[in-house]
């Protein structure tokens, strides 16, 4: 019995010693991000910039990587003039992105970090062609457009630069709210039941005028049934770069083939084939 008592006492004592060590350390909880309501009526540029700084340090989790050397695993953007740095990178011959100014560059590096990787900071073995940075509007960070704007505003303002992003308008807030609500009820996109639904789902009307001869990003589809056969229509959706309408940029998304269901494609093709002016 004494052996049992001694060994149990030793084991429990050791266990409690380990527990004690945990109490000597800082007691910090890792809270999940909480929703923050912004009153657009009282939102000033100063408070918008402050919001950006808060997102940068908290929800954005930017400081996990963007720290001063030797701890940083990404450029120390808090410690550098981001506007000057953005202009410098835009002038770099390696730059192949679409941005034309500092705001666009910062936005692009947040939403599409792989477009340009700062030398020395690429994924290991990728020779700076792949970025380890996640897209901030995608999980797990999932910043909303307003939050992205706020971060850009702070990055521009922190070193005395001119803030070129606009304060969010009421309409934008409503759009964001609906986007967030949509995200909350996120499901895999359900297949469209009608051609109209499918056209809305794939936002065709944002680039093509459906009921007028206006030229938007792409050609009008008012009489597309006269110009293209069903096979050509199908090809222009599935493989839009095979034949690009003269005078238009090759801007049509090329991923519809992997996104559309067969029935959606056929509904759209049949619908467009009937559009004869």
């Amino acid at each position: 019995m004494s052996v049992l008592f001694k060994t149990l006492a030793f084991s429990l004592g050791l266990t409690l010693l380990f527990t004690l060590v945990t109490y000597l350390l800082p007691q910090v909880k890792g809270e999940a991000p909480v929703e923050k309501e912004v009153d657009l009526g009282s939102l000033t540029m100063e408070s918008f910039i402050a919001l950006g700084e808060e997102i940068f340090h908290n929800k954005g989790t930017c400081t996990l990587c963007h720290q001063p050397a030797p701890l940083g695993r990404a450029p120390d953007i808090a410690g550098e003039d981001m506007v000057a740095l953005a202009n410098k990178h835009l002038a770099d011959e390696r730059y192949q992105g679409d941005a034309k100014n500092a705001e666009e560059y910062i936005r692009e590096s947040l939403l599409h970090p792989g477009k340009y990787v700062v030398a020395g900071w690429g994924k290991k073995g990728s020779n700076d062609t792949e970025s380890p940075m996640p897209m901030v509007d995608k999980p797990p960070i999932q910043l909303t457009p307003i939050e992205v704007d706020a971060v850009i505003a702070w990055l521009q303002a922190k070193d005395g630069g001119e803030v070129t992003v606009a304060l969010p308008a009421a309409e934008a807030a409503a759009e964001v709210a609906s986007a967030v609500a949509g995200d909350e009820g996120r499901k895999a996109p359900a297949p469209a039941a009608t051609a109209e639904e499918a056209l809305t789902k794939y936002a065709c009307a944002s680039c093509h005028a459906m009921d007028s001869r206006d030229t938007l990003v792409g050609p009008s589809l008012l009489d597309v049934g006269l110009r293209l056969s069903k096979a050509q229509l199908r090809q222009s959706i599935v493989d839009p770069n095979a034949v690009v309408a003269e005078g238009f940029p090759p801007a049509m998304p090329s991923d519809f083939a992997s996104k559309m269901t067969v029935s959606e494609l056929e509904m759209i093709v049949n619908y467009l084939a009937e559009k004869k002016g």
Partner: protein
Amino acid sequence: MKQTESIHPTGGGRFAVMLLSMLILLVFGLADVARAGTGMDSAQERIAPIGEVRLQGQPPVEVHVETAAIQEQEAEPRAAPRLSSADYPNIGVSSRAVVWVLAQMHLFFGALVLAVPLFVLLIELVGVYTRDDRYDDMAHEFMKISLTGFSITAIFGGSLALALFLLYPDLMAYLMHVFGSQWLVYAGLFFFESFFLYVYYYGWNALRYGNLKWVHLTLGLLLNASGLTIMVMANSWATFMMAPSGVDEAGVVVGNIWEVMKGPLWNPINLHRFIANIAFGGAVVGAYAAFKFLSAKDPVKRAHYDWMGYTSNFIAILSFLPLPFAGYWLMAEIYAYSQQMGITAMGGILAWLFIVQAVLIGTILLAGNFYLWSGMSRTDGSERYKGLIKIIAFVLVVCFLIWVTPHTLILSASEISLLGGSHHHILGPLGIMPAKNIAVNLMLIATFLSFQIYRRSDKVATVSWAPMGNALMIAVYLGAVVNIIFLGVYYGYFTNTVYKVGSSVAQVMTTLVVIVFGLVIDSLMFKKAKVLPSHWGRIPDRAQYALFALPIAFTWLMALMGYVRSSVKTHWHVYTVMKDNSPDNFIPAIGYAGNMITLVTVLFLLCVLFMFWVASLSGSKQPKPVVAAAGGEA
């Protein structure tokens, strides 16, 4: 006599062969059932049952079924559900705490019962090759003490499953959907594991010699194969939740089950758990040996349990040595999958846990080394190496202190001004990973040196090149120490992070070179060595407490690292795919985690005591009561 038994199978042997044959038939039968279920047989071979009966010439009765809704539901891909806190059942206590305790207990016992048959099989094999029955008896005893553990694992596993379905129904529904029929395969494997376990254990003496021994070893192999398959399948659920694969952004399954299982973290976790289980299992059975040693008065029994304790410690520490390298691989894959997740673990809120980890691993290494040094008193030849022990102890203590040095100190404003900043000018640089990498690698090398001198203490090399071999070994140790310190200091403090991480791989390789070189040179140098007498049982009682410290520290460490592994998902059930919106979706403070870990460690300790007690019952026999003679005194 033994040979005769091997030629003429015993009754038990024939029975085992019959059982194996039946099992093979069963496997073929199951394959047949599966084939029939998938409609692979031709229609002509089937007997068509009578369906609807109607009069000749009459049209069939039309039955209208509302199928539109069903078809639509089937056509819609199933994404991960988006839950609100109201979707989680509230039972009045923290759901996470309930699942935490049950999952950890299941994992503890699961690790134990997967590990023990692994090294039991190896010990049995050693017994076959050395023709030393002691190995066979010890392997059998290890199986005996872990046998109850299988039932306890199943009890906690069943309770865990019920708790998960009750407390996290939507998450479980989603995981059931993602993994589909894999769950059935998982459940089916338990039948195989149970079959092999019982035949392996109860058939031990019936299949002990000659060819039947190979049948027995095959049963052991099959037991381990089914156990390991169960483990890797269960690992795939955990790694899917950390780094989902085979699903799209919304959680819709887009790949087959293999693509779902083979996520980027699956194999690193498989390897890490495989090695850790062996170390853990060795430590637990070592505690059993230590307890029996301390309780025994008979010198023969003390010698037996001393040897058993030594073997257990050998298994635990030797398998523990490569564990940090498996850990490196796992962390490297975590960083490659998501740098954010990696930094959350190593540099974010969870970073403080690694101070506790350092204390635990330091305890394990100090206890393991102390046991080895104490064990050297078994042989007179150990005097030659006693001087080295002081150096090893010094290295271990210094490295341990470096390892537990935190980088950031929690200070008041006055303390910060007194210190001249939040980082101490000497201790600050010791708080970052390069210093800790140097410390860990040097501790591992020092521990291997303890092993090496222990193994050498009862031998005297007789080969002519022994002095040269020793000089070479010393050169390898010195070269390795210099290389590890250089790599850590140069790349850790004078280059950027990318090189810093890369240099740790070279450090690990250096340590591995020392271990491999040491094993090779010793096996050659001491091939025909003069063996000095060993006195099993001649070890101080206090050394046995090191064998208790090992399983306690291992248990704590496993629970701690489980907490880290699960917490790196932050507020996600399935990272980036399914958010955790339960009231428990935060990472708890380290003190709370410490309480939970202590709770499960104490529970595990009690259950293990019960397991040992049950094992000891089989060796006890109540004396037959003396019946008073008839017509005795009234």
